[in-house]
């Protein structure tokens, strides 16, 4: 259920006050615009427009902003309130080699990830102040190669079983829980290197068009505040076929395709 700031969440005194709420003359009131979450007796309001609030196990896409060799860690921007941390002990070294905790690999940190690099990672733990610590100890995580990064509101990406998608149109999509979306060409099976080796060969124009089309579709959906998942993106991609890629950034067409997607998805839900 949606509510606005100042709306009464409940008048029942049995409930406990959670995030995004406050008591106004003993009535639980919302302090943000968002949807009401109920866990047993705890009522909280999850804001729609927010920075990313991480949870353990989330898949995020982030950008390295700092290499802190002295602390053996990288600082990562994941659009959360505080910078996210990636410890040297929570990365897989190139070639799946185990770290020997020598001084050398501390000095080599910059050759693994440097400032500006994009990575995909999983949230490992949350510090007391809310800062996140991520890890890339899986071959599917790691540095990202050629592709396009999109930033949308984190509340548009739901927590799901899978956030890595190979769409039927032939692109690979990472829907980061933090609202960062990575679109690239699919990686062939077994070549996952944890992303240390990056392929810098030019991408063919045909593939580029598909990637840009997906990008513009996602932006159109995000502009209309529609949830982003593989179904909605696929539906929107099909609908967008009647337009050229460069027309998809016009606001009129963006609204139109997003609305058509919405209608089509509703119909499919009913069937």
């Amino acid at each position, binding site marked *: 259920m949606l509510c606005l700031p100042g709306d009464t969440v409940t008048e029942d005194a049995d409930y406990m006050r959670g995030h995004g709420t406050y008591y106004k003359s003993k009535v639980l009131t919302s302090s943000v615009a968002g949807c009401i979450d109920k866990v047993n007796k705890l009522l909280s309001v999850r804001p729609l427009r927010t920075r990313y609030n991480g949870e353990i196990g989330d898949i995020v896409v982030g*950008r390295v*902003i700092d290499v802190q060799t002295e602390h053996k860690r990288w600082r990562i921007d994941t659009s959360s309130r505080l910078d996210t941390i990636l410890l040297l002990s929570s990365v897989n070294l190139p070639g799946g080699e185990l770290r020997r905790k020598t001084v050398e690999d501390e000095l080599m940190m910059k050759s693994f990830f440097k*400032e*500006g*690099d*994009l990575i995909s990672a999983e949230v490992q733990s949350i510090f007391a102040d809310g800062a996140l610590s991520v890890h890339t100890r899986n071959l599917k995580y790691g*540095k*990202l*190669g*050629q*592709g*396009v*990064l999109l930033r949308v509101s984190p509340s548009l990406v739901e927590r799901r079983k899978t956030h890595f998608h190979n769409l039927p149109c032939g692109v690979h999509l990472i829907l980061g829980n933090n609202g960062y979306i990575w679109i690239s060409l699919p990686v062939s099976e077994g070549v996952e290197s944890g992303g240390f080796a*990056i392929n*810098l060969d*030019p*991408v063919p*124009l045909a593939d*580029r*068009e598909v*990637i*840009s*089309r997906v*990008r*513009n579709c996602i932006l159109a959906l995000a502009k209309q505040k529609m949830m982003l998942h593989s179904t909605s993106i696929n539906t929107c991609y099909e609908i967008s076929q009647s337009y*050229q*890629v*460069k*027309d*998809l*950034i*016009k*606001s009129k067409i963006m609204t139109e395709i997003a609305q058509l997607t919405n209608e089509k998805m509703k119909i499919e839900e009913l069937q």
Partner: protein
Amino acid sequence: MAELKLSEGEKCYLINGINDNFRIDGRSCWDRREIELENNLLPSCVGSALIRSVNCSVIAGVKMSLVSPDSGRPGKGKIEFFADISANADPLFEGRGGQEMTVELVRFFEDSFKDCSLLDCLTVVEGKQVWCLSIDILILEIGARASLYDLCSIAVKAALYDTRLPKVYFNPDIMDIEISEDPFDLMQLDVSKVPIFVTVTRIGNNYTIDPTQEEEASSIASLLFSVDNCGTLLHSKKLGHGSLHCYPIKELIPKISEVALELHNFIDDQCKSFTSR
């Protein structure tokens, strides 16, 4: 706007795309993104305009006063520019944070408007009284720096188009000027010669217009030109630190004029539709 740092893969993808004349949002190198223009929105100004293009928005307002002209230019009016970047655009611009950028912007405006024929129609009594237009440019949201200049110039031109000055008559009996009592006795400015700016950004081996922030982050440098409505280049300036070769720029000039003419026509059409409303 904090400097955006891109990864190697992103840059490579972007530059190769531009070599193929297909940018990440599907545009070709010489396509511009949608521009929304509104005018006459500030009641405290004699002319105003708001421009918005994706993640960049600029508001321009014109105010006027009567002053005595510069001694060397008795028949010319004056135009003053003032620019400010809202701290809402980025916390970096709080206080004096944006000063470096705004000084640059204002200087380029002043240089481009120095010999504009608009100044001639601001004369009231030659050598005695002229109009001084104060143009305020407020940057509300800042996208890529390169496209910001273009948008600012469009906003200023649209605001000048919207400007209505009260008619002033010289009364020989009292040897002084009189402002017409009829509030609708107004004078419109001839803005056809007002220049607009076109920025071309070199990315890889190609020049593009209207770059996104990502594109700007992987660019070598940008060139800013002010162009009048005949397509003549009036002024130029380089933005960014990279070095550029002069030959490709020479070849670029006809294309820049063409782009500028398109923009001039766009403003004319938009502003005409405003007045007919």
